[in-house]
């Protein structure tokens, strides 16, 4: 396909449609509104549904309802709306409903600076809802990557029956780049798993060897129950520990045993590097620049660009940092993902570069940390 000039938000919407998304519910908020606007135009063209709900709580609720009806469904918001969605994101994790939640991060807390970039929701993506649950969160660093990771988000959601969060940021969302989109026929799409068992044998939460029991959409003859209460294999509420614990173990296991599929990242010259920069999202762009400049000065510097933030790629970071005496973690917040890096490689080697005033981290800021 020939290159087109496209905004990150548009690429997200197009990626969703390419992945088979047929339902979008949302509420306008800068800098994510363009995703909704694009979906409002595009989804009806492919027979899908766009609806603007009365708030973000309703938006994520409608998305989950649509997913229960069998649709691949998505919502998009920014910090304030993401906060409102948290309870129902936990519901999706509990009930194991596939869906995609896009958070185009802007500067917070509260209304903050709506048109300024931030990476302030990294921990919220992990721990925003109450209770223990696994989550997958991906962070793109370019317009093309936004397209690709949106497709990946839908595929992970279906393959692992889980909510997936796409953590964009204001720059990635609003920036326009010339992109060459992949041929639609070449895009891998994971569809909702089907079951071979008849309705009377079907258990929506069965402890299967795959750890991911198929979720049959409502209205197909498999009448069953979905609840946010702890439940047994049939989906009925339970207080039995011998039903709660196996479920809890399974939902973590289904992610943990598939890390090689879920963990997406790019390494550049990490082998033998004395300094390693670990970055994601818009900051990875400045990091790449800084690494190049440092190399020109003869330094052995590696870059680990993380695309999957959650589950945190512990072993990937550990391996990449093996030869490094210093690990630099630049972030547009006052230190969030760095806490994980420190946990894995030890605090002594880590240097933080932070900014949380809505301005970008410059390559020179990262270079300075190498000194």
């Amino acid at each position, binding site marked *: 396909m020939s290159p087109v000039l496209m905004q990150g938000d548009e690429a997200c919407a197009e990626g969703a449609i390419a992945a088979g998304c*047929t*339902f979008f*519910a949302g509420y306008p908020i800068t800098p994510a509104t363009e995703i909704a606007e694009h979906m409002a*135009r595009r989804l*009806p*063209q*492919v*027979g*899908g*549904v766009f*609806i603007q*709900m*009365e*708030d973000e*709580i*309703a*938006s994520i*609720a*409608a*998305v*989950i*309802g*649509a*997913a*229960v*009806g*069998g*649709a691949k*469904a998505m919502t998009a918001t920014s910090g304030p709306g993401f906060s409102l969605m948290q*309870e*129902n994101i936990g*519901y999706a994790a509990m009930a194991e409903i596939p869906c995609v939640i896009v958070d185009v991060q802007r500067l917070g807390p509260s209304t903050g600076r709506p048109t300024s970039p931030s990476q302030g929701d990294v921990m919220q993506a992990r721990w925003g809802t109450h209770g223990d649950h696994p989550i997958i969160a991906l962070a793109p660093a370019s317009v093309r990557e936004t397209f690709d990771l949106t497709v990946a988000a839908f595929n992970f959601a279906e393959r692992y029956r889980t909510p997936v969060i796409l953590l964009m940021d204001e720059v990635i969302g609003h920036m326009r780049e010339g992109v060459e989109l992949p041929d639609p026929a070449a895009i891998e799409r994971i569809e909702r798993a089907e079951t071979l068992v008849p309705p009377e044998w079907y258990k929506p939460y069965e402890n299967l060897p795959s750890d991911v029991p198929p979720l049959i*959409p*409502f*209205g*197909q*003859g498999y*009448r*069953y*129950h*979905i*609840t*946010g*209460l702890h439940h047994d294999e*049939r989906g*009925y*509420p339970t207080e039995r520990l011998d039903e709660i614990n196996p479920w809890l173990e399974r939902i973590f296991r289904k992610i943990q045993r598939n890390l090689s599929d879920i963990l997406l990242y790019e390494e550049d010259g990490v082998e033998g590097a004395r300094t390693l920069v670990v970055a994601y999202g818009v900051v990875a762009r400045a990091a790449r620049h800084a690494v190049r400049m440092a190399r020109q000065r003869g330094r052995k510097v590696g870059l680990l660009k993380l695309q999957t933030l959650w589950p945190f790629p512990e072993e990937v970071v550990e391996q990449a940092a093996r030869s490094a005496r210093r690990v630099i973690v630049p972030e547009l917040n006052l230190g969030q993902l760095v806490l994980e890096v420190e946990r894995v490689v030890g605090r002594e080697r880590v240097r933080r570069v932070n900014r949380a005033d809505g301005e970008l981290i410059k390559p020179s800021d990262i270079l300075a940390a190498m000194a």
Partner: protein
Amino acid sequence: MRPQRESRIHERYLRHTKKFPNIWCAGCGIGIVLGAIIRAVDALGLDKDEVAMVSGIGCTGRMPVYVDFNTLHTTHGRALAFATGLKLVRPEMKVIVVMGDGDALAIGGNHFIHAARRNIGLTTIVVNNATYGMTGGQYSPTTPLGAITSTTPYGHIEPPFQIAELARCAGAAFVARSTVYHVEELQEYMTRALQKEGFSLVEAISYCHTTIGRLNQWGTAPEMMRRLKDDSIPLSLAERMSPEERAGKIIRGILADRDDLTEYTRRYYEEVVQRARREMEWIVPKSVLPVRAVRE
């Protein structure tokens, strides 16, 4: 012909393998509302596979787990929003939404008025027990003025919402109110609500005897049932009474039954999708359009 004997109906609609008995207090009216729903569904001969029941959180919210439909027990207040997503992708399904008064009008009040305004085809049933039953009798948006609840130990000073009137003003296509004493009337309203294509609301008054009833000495469960009979009047009678005479009475009847509105999902697929497709045809030749069929 399907068996019509009342004694068999529970076998066809309740989940026997579920751990019965249910969680409701003896004498609670929620079971009566559930019975009326089941009989209405049965009378209409609806296919269970095509019926979904969606609820929020509360005593009323526990209803779906006991019935053999496609059942979704969601979060507190959000049942209508979940149901909106489901209905939009499964327009052919009958989606019944059951909620308590707190669920529907406090935490879920925003969704309530907007679902009614959109006129989306959800059959909504609010069990109005005038309190938060599940959490032990705090005041709700429908608690009467002056009532003692666990959070109004000195008496309630907020006026209550009129649920049915609110739905009517918000644009619902069908609105009716009855009580759990008037079971046949309730069932008739459920049947008519299920037949309505747009947003329908049935308010079922069923005061909670365990919490607010006990705190205000409204009597035992049977006595409170009798009060529903004595304190309620049909709409036709209420219309002939002065506001003073009507005061404090539960007005039973059909408050709205509109034919001038088009249901939302129908409008979406017939208007929005069709317009978008026509616009597409200007830009791209038909053969290039995605093949996914439009749901009619």
